[in-house]
């Protein structure tokens, strides 16, 4: 594995080999600088660790590489520099204003803990993240885990998939100008897996399934202007929606149904706030695929629906991890 760093506090001209913000080995100043400097035919995993409280406004197009199942691109934040399960302007985020600035053309790319927002108005195609691989579903492996798309503007979806096989795990897409997610097969097939995701408060559908092969488990959609689910996924279980378009009908509310912490537009917090939530212990066990929630907490017992594991006693539990990755203490977020 080769590791490079992006830090929005760094100055331009670094070689990206450390996360320092000065010196010859300083981090790349933006995502696009990492991508330009490193695009190649990969012979090992290329990992890029991103941080910085200032928005990264560069394009996050990934194109011109050769990737494979063994030699893929991994774009991630560390837990310390990661969002807290909702749009967080103090943590690393990609906020781009250009048309198609969030398009990923490669077949083997993974995003972990990244926030996305397409900010511009006046044109669609300002999605937070679009997977548009060249390969068919059987020859692609694309993943988004613990990612957020928020407030993508002017008739733009939060996330979009135009082909390939994509696993969306513990992701949230909310407050966008069109759908939370749109999946389309544009000719070479599209296979999507949605596990423990939320699509909420979008100006159009929560999930818009235009075509493709869809699996969805433990997902929730509510507060969307259009249908929460445009159609039932081909393979589905343990999903909930406010409008009953698919799965169990569960209110998008702080005082009933989902019992989210906050559903006020612009201040949404989808952590489960009450033991009466219909989402608690209502999930399908996916521990053969992943074992943590959006905050990195281990899921145990019967799973919840949605990206947050619920812990009784109030608030959400966040593991603060030491430098070797093991938890050093556990704290509760009290709302």
């Amino acid at each position, binding site marked *: 594995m080769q590791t490079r760093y992006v830090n929005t506090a760094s100055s331009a001209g*670094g070689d990206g080999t450390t996360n320092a913000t000065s010196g010859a080995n300083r981090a790349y100043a933006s995502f*696009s600088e990492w991508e*330009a400097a490193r695009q190649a035919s990969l012979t090992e995993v290329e990992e890029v660790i991103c941080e910085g409280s200032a928005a990264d406004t560069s394009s996050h197009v990934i194109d*011109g590489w050769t990737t494979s199942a063994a030699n893929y691109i991994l774009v991630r934040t560390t837990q310390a520099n990661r969002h807290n399960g909702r749009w967080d302007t103090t943590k690393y985020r990609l906020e781009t204003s250009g048309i*198609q600035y969030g398009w990923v053309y490669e077949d083997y790319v993974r995003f972990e803990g990244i926030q996305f927002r397409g900010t511009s108005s006046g044109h669609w195609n300002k999605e937070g993240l679009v997977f548009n691989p060249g390969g068919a579903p059987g020859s692609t492996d694309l993943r988004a885990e613990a990612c957020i798309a928020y407030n993508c503007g002017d008739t733009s979806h939060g996330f979009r998939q135009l082909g390939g096989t994509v696993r969306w795990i513990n992701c949230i897409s909310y407050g966008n100008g069109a759908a939370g997610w749109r999946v389309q097969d544009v000719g070479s097939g599209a296979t999507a897996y949605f596990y423990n995701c939320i699509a909420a408060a979008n100006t159009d559908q929560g999930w818009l399934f235009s075509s493709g092969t869809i699996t969805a488990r433990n997902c929730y959609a509510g507060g969307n202007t259009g249908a929460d689910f445009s159609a039932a996924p081909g393979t589905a279980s343990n999903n909930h929606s406010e409008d009953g378009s698919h799965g169990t009908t569960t209110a998008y509310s702080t005082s009933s149904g989902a019992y989210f912490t906050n559903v006020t537009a612009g201040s949404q917090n989808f952590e489960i706030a009450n033991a009466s939530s219909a989402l608690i212990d209502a999930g399908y066990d996916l521990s053969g695929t992943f074992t943590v929630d959006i905050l990195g907490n281990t899921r145990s017992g019967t799973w919840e629906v949605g990206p947050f594991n619920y812990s009784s006693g109030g608030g959400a539990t966040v593991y603060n991890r030491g430098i070797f990755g093991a938890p050093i203490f556990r704290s509760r977020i009290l709302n």
Partner: protein
Amino acid sequence: MAILVLIDRDATHSDPTKDARGCYKLGDIVAVHDDSRYTDGEPIAPPWYLIRITGVTKAQIERLIEPARDALDPQGLRVLRRRRWRLNPADLPSGARTTLQTTRFLSVTATQARNYIRDKLGLETL
């Protein structure tokens, strides 16, 4: 003032479509930053050239990182080249070229820069 971040080499791909659409080429403008994102004297590592342009803001020249799109595409979205605009060091006057290639940094006015930032589509001059 703004900083242009240029790449000093060609990336290539065996697939001609990906090579054209996705690979950066020498002189492509990879990023545009506020002047605050570089302090004189900081070391500049390959593959970067940095050019400070005085008299403009980042917002005024941010379009220099746009891709070259197919004007015949009905939606105007199809990308032909990773970047539409480039500044080829070989086009610079010899003194400026030597400075850039030696120090990887050059400071110019907007008027000076305008003469050397070229539209790959050949449709527009700055």
